[in-house]
């Protein structure tokens, strides 16, 4: 994994796809290519009520990336200093081996330039001290980007809230 983490708080996500749009705008991509994508799961009946979740799927920036192993030209690379997996467009020949190799479909085909494009956590922006494009526009602030050790403790907080004694039990 890279030293960064892009956390999605699924409970806050409303599936507005703003992140996708901002990502594509930032990278200048045609409609087909989605370096990050919000996948809708559901709706299903949950306790008699319809529920849907929206799962944010960027690149996971694997420790041992399948795409990097599969790439025949060395275009797909893992940046040593922070572990970001990115693609060098000057080397890409568009053979799409990485697209088929990735177990999560992260590398995307950009038909406008005949090359692969993928989520690189907007590393040009990170190097300027900015956040990835998707994070900056998230309407419900469900996306958080930072170095892994500075991730918010949302899950623990929620679990603690659920487990904590309620007012009723206090009064009892």
């Amino acid at each position, binding site marked *: 994994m890279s030293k960064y983490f892009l956390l999605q708080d699924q409970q806050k996500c409303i599936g507005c796809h703003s992140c996708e749009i901002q990502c594509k705008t930032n990278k200048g991509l045609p409609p087909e290519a989605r370096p990050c994508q919000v996948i809708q799961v559901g*709706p299903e009946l949950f306790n008699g009520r319809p529920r849907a979740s929206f799962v944010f799927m960027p690149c996971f920036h694997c420790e041992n990336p399948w795409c990097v*192993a599969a790439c025949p030209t060395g275009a797909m690379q893992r940046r040593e200093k922070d572990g970001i997996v990115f693609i060098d467009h000057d080397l890409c020949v568009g*053979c*799409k*081996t990485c697209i088929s190799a*990735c*177990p*999560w479909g992260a590398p995307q085909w950009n038909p406008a330039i005949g090359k692969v494009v993928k989520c690189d956590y907007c590393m040009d922006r990170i190097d300027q001290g900015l956040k990835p494009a998707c994070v900056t526009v998230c309407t419900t602030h469900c996306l958080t980007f930072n170095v892994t050790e500075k991730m918010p403790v949302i899950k623990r907080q929620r679990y603690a809230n659920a487990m904590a004694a309620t007012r009723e039990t206090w009064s009892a």
Partner: protein
Amino acid sequence: MIPITINGDVYEALPGQRLLLFLMEKGIRVPHLCFHRALTPAASCKLCVVEIKEKGQAHQTRLACALKIREGLAVTTESAMIHQLRSAAITDLLKLAPHSEAIHRIGREFGLHTGAPPDGCIRCRLCIRVCSEIIGARALTMEKKNGRNFVVPSEKGSCIGCLTCTNLCPTQAIYFVDEGDVRTIMIRDTVVGRHKLEKCPICGRMFATTRFLDHVRRREDGHPEEKAALQYCPTCSKGYYRKNLAHTAPKLATIYGNKAVQG
């Protein structure tokens, strides 16, 4: 009627008649493309150029379609000078209409320098190079036919249908057609490869050739981790790691319509 000389032979001709029309009547072949009997001459294709000689004057070149027959005219329809001018004219015409069979036919008939008819390939060898250097399939090679190089499939079955060649080709001379579960890669009218396409078990779209997926698996050899043996299309792979696949798949299908996916 007045006598005129054409290629050394004397003919009786009507003064004022267009020379090209007279030559056609006499069966003397002169190339032309823009002449029409019913219309005034435009002298635009410049193929009907002939040499004329009049008393007391030097040799001159004139367009036969526009020239009117007059007394004492001596016409030559073939010479080194004429050949050169017609070759220049036909080269200009081919720049405007490179695929025109009519122009190439005239070039052949009159032995003009037209070059071979263009086939869209600029002989950059990008397809050959990427196939042998990067993909390793060596499915394409250059072959000389009639003194000219052509990209041809090298040996039967070495193509894997990855489409990197069609992707890199700067002029789209090498291209592919997907029909049902068969992908065909073509250059000119030569088949480079025909391949079976794999169907995504979730969304049902054809997404890559079997041979290409084998190639990907070979590339991944030695990877320390394991992944699902079943191959889904890149889009459905996103949903696969979630359990509720049955719900994501129809949604994904509506996002992308029934268009073929990448990979």
